[in-house]
Structures are given as C-alpha cells and as structure tokens.
C-alpha cells in the first residue's frame, strides 16, 4: 500500500496547492462528494502516483468553501454516518475551466522544454 507524506508542510506546497485545488474542483464536479471520497478518487485516478496529503486536503476544501468555489452540506452516507459533502458551485465550475486551461498550457510548455530536440545556438 502507498503511504502518505507524514509531514504536513511539504516544500513545494505552493505548486501543490494550486494543483490540489484544481484536482479537488475536478473531483467534486462529478457530484457531491465528501473529503475522503475526494482523496480516494484522486489517488485511484492517478493510479496512486499522486499521494494526497490529508492534512492539506481539508484546509484546501474549507478555504475553497469560504471562497464560494464549492458548497458544503451535511448528509448521511450509505452506512448512515454523518459526513460533510462538497458540491461544485457555478463559480467553482468557472474556476475549474480557467484552471484546467492554464494547467494544460503550463504542462505542454514544460513538456516542450523537456522533450526539446533543438539545441541552443551558441554564439
């Protein structure tokens, strides 16, 4: 089984946060989802490549709730347990679109650099 990061503050938190936010938005875009389900979905979707630090996941969820990107409601799970379900708001959907576009451009730009075949010309 994969293990999570034990430390709450990883050095590349800035990058991680932005990435985490967009992944959360994508996760809840499928429908109301509690925090555990969000973590599980991201893990399984990335084939366990991306380990979500639970200590960072919840602050991100709450922050996005306060910003109005997602909405929260208490509901019961299939096992009749109370859980907090997050849902994408209209504002959140808009945000997801923007973030996804910029992520694509970023990723392809980095990819172009990494796989470049043209040698820089030395003057």
């Amino acid at each position, binding site marked *: *089984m994969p*293990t*999570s*990061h*034990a*430390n*709450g503050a990883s050095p590349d938190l800035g990058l991680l946060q932005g990435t985490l936010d967009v992944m959360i938005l994508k996760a809840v875009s499928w429908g109301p989802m*509690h*925090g*555990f389900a969000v*973590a*599980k979905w991201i893990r399984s979707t990335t084939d366990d490549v991306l380990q979500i*630090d*639970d*200590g960072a996941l*919840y*602050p991100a969820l*709450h*922050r996005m709730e*306060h910003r109005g990107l997602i909405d929260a409601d*208490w509901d019961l*799970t299939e*096992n009749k*347990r*109370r*859980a*907090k379900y997050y849902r994408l708001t209209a504002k959140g959907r808009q945000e997801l679109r923007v973030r996804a576009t910029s992520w694509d451009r970023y990723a392809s730009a980095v990819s172009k650099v990494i796989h470049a075949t043209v040698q820089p010309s030395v003057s």
Partner: protein
Amino acid sequence: MAGDDTRKWHRYLTFWRANIAADVDTELSFHVDARTEELCAAGVERSAARAQALREFGDVDLARRTLRSMDERHAASERRAHFAGDILGDIRVAIRALRRSPGLVAVVGLTFALGIGVTGAMYSVVDNMLFKPLPGRDGAALVVLGRTEEKLPQPHELSFPDYRDYRADTTVFASLVAYTSRVVELKTDRGADRVWIDDATANYFAVLGLRPMLGRTFDPDEDRGTLAHPTIVLTYKGWQAHFAGDSGVIGRAITINGHPVTVIGVTPPEFHGVRPLVDMDGVVPIDQVWPAYGADLENRASAVVSVFGRLRPGVSPSAAREAVRLKARQLERAYPVSNRNVGAVLLREQFTRPSINVAEITLGIAAMFMALVILVMIVACANIASLLLARVVSRGRDLAVRAAIGASQWRLVRQVLVECTLLALLGGIGAVGVTFAAARAMSSINVATDIPIRWGIELNGRIVAFTILATLLAALAAGLAPASAARKRNLHDVLRSGTGNSATSAHRRLRSALVAGQIAISVVVLVCAGLFVRSSANATRMNLGFRTDHVLMLSTELRRESYDTTRGQQFYREVLRRSAAVPSVQSVALARFVPFGYDRAMQTIVPIAPGVQLPVNGFSYFYNVVGGDYFATLGIPLLEGRAFTDRDDATAPPVAIVNDAFVKAMWPGQPAIGKRFRFGGSDGRVLEIVGVVRGMGDLLIGETPKPYVFLPVTQAYRTPMTILVHTASDPTSVARSMRDVVAGLDPTLSVFDVRTMENHLRNGQALLFQRLGSAFATAFGLLALVLATIGVYGVVSYAVAQRTREIGVRMALGARRPAIARLVLGQGMRLGWIGLAIGLVLSVATMGVVSSVLYGVTPRDPLVLGSVVGILMLVVAIASLVPARRAMRIDPITSLRSQ
C-alpha cells in the same frame, strides 16, 4: 482550563450558529473511520487498520486546529458583514416609521434635547471649574502649595518669605510661582477703570508655558527690587477692553493707580488669569507697580501670596508631599513665632479651584449638582422610555407579524434600539442649542458687584465627548424597557386579538412604574430646590451679629504720593464730619475690611501676661482697622469697656478692642479690659484692650465668631478704606450725597463699590453658593416638573386611547360622563400619589447630604414638603385633565363601531 472555558463559550454560541468545533471533529473523524473501514475490508486487522489510517492522515490535531481557526475567522467576518447590512436596513426602517409619527419625534426629541442639553451645560460649568487645565504647556501637571494653620484648617496663601524658602531649598520643585491679585485703577487715553490684576513673580508665564500673542512676557529678573520695573502684560480681554485691540499697544505708557506703567505684552485669548472664575485684565511683576507691598512681602506672618508650580520630572506626588511637610517643619523650627503650627499642603492645581480656601466645598457642590443633573437625565430617559413603550405596545401587531415571518427577537429588539438611538441623536443635536442657551443664561447671573466673573462655558473636546456619551447612554437607557417589551411580545395573543395592541398588564405596570418613578425623582429635585430657596432666604434674614439693613458702603483709596499719614488722617476726619451732616445719616464709620468682603488680613498676636514674661507664643488672628462710630453704625454691642474715641490718636497710648471670642481664646474667665498684647509678633506694638464687643459673622454665614482684633484708624493709618453710613431712610438715597462728600474733599479720588450692605451680602461670597444653589436647583426642579408632566400626560392619554372601546361600552351601559372623567383622572392621580410618596421618602433620606450647606432649614421642612406636594398634585391633575376631557367626549356608538 482555558480549553474548558473555550468549550463553554462555544456551547453558548451554538444558540445562534453552527458549532464549528464539533463539525470539524465530525468531518475529520469520518475520514479516519472511512479509511479504517476500507483497510479492514481489504483484510487488515482492525486496530492495525486504525493505526495506519491515522498515520496516513498525518497530524490530526494540527489539521483540527487549522480548520477550526479558519472556519471561525470566516464565520466572524460573515457575521460582521451581515450585521452591518442589517443595521443599515434597521435605520431605513426606523426613519420610515418615525416619519409617520412626527408628534412623537417632536416630543421625544425635545425631551432628549432638554435632558442632554441641561446636563451638558452643567457639565461645562463643572468642567471649567474643576477639569479644564490652565492654558499653556501641560496645565494638568501644575501643583499648588498652600499653607495650613492650627487655627485655620482650610489651606490658604503663603507668606512671601516662606515662598522664597520653598523655591530656593526644596529639591522637589522644578519651579514655583507666587502671585497675588488686587484691584487697581488703570488709566489709558480712553479713560480710567478699576480692574483686577495679578502681581506675580517674573517666572509666571514661563512656568505656565504661555507665549505672548503680542510683545513679550516678563524677563527673568523683572521682579527684582521695588517699583524698579513698572510693566504690565495685558490679557486678551484687558487688551480688548482698554485698547480696543489696538496692535500698537506694545511700549505704550499707561498709569496704574496714577503711576506710569509700560505695556510689554498681550496674552492669547484663551488666557484669563489663573483663577478659573475670574477674568483678569493683566499681570504685573510682583512689587513693581505702585503701591509696593513693602514690608508685607518680608513678613512671615502675612500670608499674602498664592503659590503654584511644577514638580521636578520623576518626583512622585507622595515624595513631593513628604518633602513639603519636612520643609514646613524646618521653617517652623527656624521661625517659631510666625510659623508656629504652620504646615503646608501640596495639591493638584485642578483641586484648588476656584480658590484653595474653598476647594473642598466646591468639589462637594459640583458633585451634588452633577448628581442632580443626572437625576433629571434619568427622568428624561424614563419619559422617553414610557413614550416608546406605548409605541411598541401599539405597534404590537406590526411586530408580531414581523416575528411571524421570521424576524428574530434580537432583530426586533435592535429595531427598537435603533429607533431610540436615532431619536437620541436628533435630541443630541438639539441639545447643543440647549447647552448654549443654558450657558448664556448662567453667564448672565450677576454674582458679585466687583469681580469680573467668567463662567468659561465653551465647547471643547471633553464636553463634546460628554454629550456623545450622555446621548448614547440615554438612548440605551430609554430604549431598554421598550426593547425588552418588544422581545417578550406574545405572538399568539397579539395575532388573535383584533386590535393588535394588547397591552398586557405587565406592560401597563411597567409604564406606570416609570412615570411614578419620574414623579418621585421630580419630588427629590423640587424638594432640593425648595430647601435651597428657603435656606437662601433664611441666610439673608439670619442674624449675623451686625446691622445688615439701612447701611450704605462706599470705598476710596488715597494715593500715597498725595496723601501721607497726616493728610490721610485729616481726610478721614473730614469725611466723617461731613458725612455725619448728610440728612438721614445716623452714624458714620470707616473700615479697612468689611464683613463678608473679599479681602481680610491676619496678624500675629502675642499676649503679655502682667508681671511674667511668657515664652514666645503667638496666635494668628483676623484684624480690622476702623474709624468713626464703627460699632454703633453696624449695631455691634459693646460688652465691656468703651468704644474708640477721637482722643485715641497717635499721641495717646495704643489701644485695641477685641471680640468675646478673642477673650475666650486668650484669657478665659478673666476680665479683659486693661490686658495687653503685642500686635505683629514678639517685636510688635503693645496694645491695651479698652473694650470688648460681641463676635459677629465674617467669612461664612452661620459660623461661630472667630477671635478678632479692632484697631483705631487714628493710630493705625490704612488705605483704601470703606465708608459705612447707617441711614434712617433708604440707604441708596444718600449715595449721591456721599459721593459728593468725597468729591468735595478731593475731586480726583475715585469712589468705588458703592453698595448697600444687603446688596453686598446678597451678591458677595457669603451667599454666593446659596444663590447659585437655589437658582440651579429651581431651574432643574422646573425642568423635572415639565418632564414629569409630559410623562403623566403621555401615559394617561395613551391609556384613554387604548380604553376607548371600554369607555364606549361603559357609556352605552349608562355611565355618566363625569364618572368617566373621574375614572381617567383617578388613574393619573394614583400615579401622582405613589410617585409623591416614594419621592418624599427618598428626599428625606437623601437630603441629609446637603443639610450641611443649608441655613435654618431641615430636610423635613414642612413648608417645602407641603409646597412640593401641592405643586406636584396640581400639575398631575392638569396633565390628566386633558385626556380626561377627551375621554368624556368619546362617542359610544363610534367607538364601538370602529373596532
């Protein structure tokens, strides 16, 4: 422990909103549990699964803390935004509602304006008297040094040599100023005036930290020598009054008491001298302007200078007091005659107003009037509360509907408070006008004939702050009862009842209690006013031990360059001779000091026992220098011996007359005639007692007479002198002739302070507090009465409006109109009696506090209590009569149909 407290706090908060802490806990534990279940399902043993789930999560505690604080911050900012929006809404609703009832707005606004305005005016007087620092640099840090004596416990002025020693020796003072005030004749091109000036040491302005507006203030050695630097710094007021604000005044030569003096500077407008109630015209360096003080400034027994200064930085008040006490002891050892039992006190300048002698009384009186004002304020608030309560009750249906559609109780309460605050703000604006009107009225009170009084009422930061605070407190106080009524309204009752104004009996009782309470307070204020008026009248009539009617007084000062002692004595003899010839004049006298006047002097008395030379042992007693038939003119009975005669002149043995208190203090039980004492310390003149007179009042009305010594002017020349004449007819009728007598002898002399003894006593300091007391208390009493009338009228007419239907039914069933009127009137009168009873009990209980300043009247004075009862019931009857007439005119058919 802190954690426990937090949890309790959160429990409390959950009444209003979601429990953040519990939600965070639930969310996180769900995550860990779900992961544990998942691992179990995959075959991991339960405890291992839980351990792994926790490990995977990381620091659960940190996450919990982070989430809680994030959510709480967010919730708080949400609430703030929400609240601000709500308040704006409330204000809009309140303005709409108030616009619909302009009558209520007018009455409530006026009541607030009166209540707050009068409070503000009174506060501004107290502020000027007690709190406002002197202008200049850091006036609040100034301290005053006073002298105490065994025989005269109130602190008073210092002798100049003592002042010099304190200034030179003590390490606690950074600086000390000595000054004394006097009246002089100031003559410019525009004419002559009698004005008040301060004679001060040259560091006066430097210590105050006051820069001149024009010219300069004193140079450091401008007070050296005698009559060497005749200069004056005018106050702004003096500059305006005598030079009409002429900016070329610097360097101008004027005369003071006929001697040339140069104007060197003008102070800024905010400076009026250092005595809070007196408007000075200028300040001169001490002993530099004619007449010089001469020996008075070298005499340790002559307490003539007021002293103020600043402590060295870092010296604590208690250390300073201790040092001053030690210094006083040291001076006592060095000068056992003049400084016997002489101590010193150090007080903050603000606690020595208006003068160090009466500062204690001032504080008490100021406190009493502030208390009175606060009572009036409470009455005003009770009134407003009553009116608004009626409004809340009559709007019951409106409030019930709002509650039914989901407005919270808090919301309804807030609505009422917002309305009340708006009304109070409106009143507060009106209050500024009332403050100034009241202040002007107070300034016009004629206090004394001779002193330029300045009430100093002006808008400053403290007064504005006070008014704002009073407004908010008033709004809260007046809004609380109606607001709680709004909260408690029973929804079902209101919606069921057709009228929508189902005043429950509890509300009716509350409103009645408010009105009865304000009647009670009005009673207290009115009783206080009545007592002061009676006391003031009594004080005027009180036997002071001397004749107060049919006496005219006028004063004149003989300039020293044209009158030496011989010429002066000649002048006095002629004045006495010619005055006696004026028709209606019964007897004539001269006196250096008049009883209850503003100046008096003390001297050290050393008794000489026959045969035996006693150790040095002096007493400081008041004395007076008199001429003519002083005791006959003032009707002071001679108990033993003889009065002064013309034969007691410079060639005859020096004589004195003393009062019975003097004999009692010096030689109790022994015959006094023939006893001798030294006047002016152990090397003073020896005087022989030739007569004993009965003691009389001199400083405070009702005081026990103090030991007193009289000297004949024929043996102790003094100037200025006051001429006193006892007349058969109205004393003012001889004023013209008396002026002519002086002018006939020397037309260049100015005659001042022409007044009857009655006037002198009424306007002088003797009755000042009495007169101010009755004026203020009467004004407040009337104000409280007006407010109580509004209150009774409001409650009774509201009750009539509410009971219209009931009255209609009664009439339909045959009740006669007078019976209806009696019913309504009875309600008002019942409130009146209850309030009156409570008020009388309260007055008798509390008026003991003021009884110490009352003369010849007790707090249970039947005349005062009886009048208050009469006036109050009359006013209550009138206030209820108007609604009673309205009730009588109710048409039963209309009233029944309207419901």
